[in-house]
């Protein structure tokens, strides 16, 4: 359970009308069809992932209401799920979200030094976004890659066996990448959520 869920302005509205592209919408309907009739709510978590990716990296009330409409469920059913799972971001995030592990096995392998180094390098604390809007840093619990500790994940990509030099390289790599590789890539939905 997110400890900070009271802090989020989940009812924040922009009054903006969100809508999936026709392509995504077709895929979304395929996902809904995987579940038995009347159980379309099961598609909620996959849909929130897709919505978050397509609509700029985080969720707000307008987006959640749109998803509720797609699944014919009440908006509150979406809010309660979005606030429960730590991968749904209710605050604005940068282009890349860095999630660095702070759990035991990573700490035993020097994970806390990497966390400190990353904070200093980016000049932000955990939970903050850099001024240029490129990176958001999050300290997270176990990422399930303990044998390759210390570990961090940048969006969906794992970076393992971290050292200060590795972190320098990784940050440079993302900084120099003009376009976020996955955003607006329709293939992305296909790759992660559908089988052909």
């Amino acid at each position, binding site marked *: *359970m997110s*400890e900070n869920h009271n802090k989020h302005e989940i009812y924040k509205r922009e009054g903006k009308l969100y809508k999936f592209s026709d392509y995504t919408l077709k895929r979304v309907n395929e996902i809904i069809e*995987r579940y*038995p009739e009347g*159980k379309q*709510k*099961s*598609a*909620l*978590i*996959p849909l*929130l*992932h897709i919505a978050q990716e397509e609509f700029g990296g985080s969720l707000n009330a307008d987006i959640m209401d749109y998803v509720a409409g797609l*699944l014919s*469920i009440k908006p509150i*059913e979406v809010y*309660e*799920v979005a606030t*429960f*799972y*730590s*991968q*749904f971001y209710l605050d604005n995030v940068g282009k890349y979200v860095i*999630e660095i592990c*702070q*759990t*035991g*096995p990573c*700490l*035993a*392998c020097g994970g*806390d030094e990497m966390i400190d180094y990353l904070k200093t390098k980016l000049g932000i604390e955990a939970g903050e976004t850099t001024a240029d809007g490129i990176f958001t840093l999050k300290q*997270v*619990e*176990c*990422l*399930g*890659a*303990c*044998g*390759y*500790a210390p570990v961090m*994940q940048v969006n*969906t*990509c*794992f970076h393992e066996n971290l050292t200060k030099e590795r972190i320098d390289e990784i940050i440079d790599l993302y900084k120099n990448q003009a376009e976020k590789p996955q955003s607006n890539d329709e293939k992305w939905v296909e*790759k*992660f*959520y*559908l*089988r*052909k």
Partner: protein
Amino acid sequence: MGGKILLEKINIPGIETFDIYRKSGGYSAVEKALKTMTPAEVVEEVRKSGLRGRGGAGFPTGMKWGFIDRKSEKPHYLICNADESEPGTFKDRYLMEHLPHLLIEGMICSAFALEAKTAYIYIRGEFKYLIGILNKALSEAYANGFLGKNILGTSYCLDIYVHPGAGAYICGEETALIESLEGKRGNPRLKPPFPAFFGLYSCPTVVNNVETLAAVTSILNMGGDFYSKLGNGKSTGTKLISACGNINKPGVYEIEMGITVEDFIYSEKYCGGIKGGKNLKAVVPGGSSVPVLPAQLILKTASGQPRLMTYESLAEGGFETGTMLGSGGFIVYDEDQCMVRNTMSFARFYHHESCGQCSPCREGTGWQERLLYRIEHGLGRAKDIDLLADISKHIEGNTICPLGDAAAWPVSSAIRHFRNEFEFHIEHPEIVKNISHGNIDKYRK
């Protein structure tokens, strides 16, 4: 000792593709089950094998399958639990990444045994890259007639879908997983009724771990009787152990249950000894939830017998001097690791992951974390250790799901075996304030 079963073919180049997997003997278990056996015979074979759930609890799989309500007219569901989130555990990720078809083959056989026509793989949201790998493998299996309608020309039909989670450890608990799959918050359900009667959409459901389902393939290929002779006593077969922490060769190893813990830690075949030639301080052998044991108790039981890598041997001595095999997340700590700091990180983990349903867990995990934070940062008070032990005792056994127990055990065991370190932190705040980690023994006068 012990050939590989699950990971036997892992070094074959291209084994993640259908063609190579099939050429090297893959999907023969599906052919055998669907063409020559009845569902009840498959269940019987698994029961005979003595296979125990590989997700952590170690419940006999054949027995779990035996509970499924066959009289029900509702559809049956099989769910593969791929929500691997237990700190120290990364075996399922390894299996799915390198041998996706082994899991799919095991799932087809298992779903057939349970007469399920739909199966879901619930995978943790952080493993998004694996979803692509699994979907590719599933597509290949469909294209080759091993999934979909009338598999291998029989009347059996099966669809498998991958369903992502979104970052919640609690969804590894089977009823929380079912809630999550229904599109809700991952709050565990009260049992009974058990999922075998009222599971997904109130239908008969079985939830099995990735490794368990993969093992079904091997059991059908070699026969339940043969499988049951591998391993040691009631710990039959092989187990994937994900070794991490301060060792020379972290990674996933398949062991035949029955090798000694000492062999596992020190032999070149497995962990390759402690990194930097340091001494062993402690081991958490089954993922963060199981009790931590100091070096002398993990290598030898209290009665002086060598400790073996089996469910029974690791548990010998109860929680006083024993621990559990759990999920096989084997975390090794060298002499320089601070047990208070490690326990604090685990307490923080459980506080973060508590779903908030039961007060003892929701409140207790927070109290544990705050007390441990205080002690670790040189702000501890004399009574804090007893208070901490008291809190963990009151969480344990008083919650709907086992997360409460899992949150209490690392704390109570750390106090039991490393009380002197906690006392040192409280007695020497000026020292612990200035060192962020490390071996407090070095600072002892």
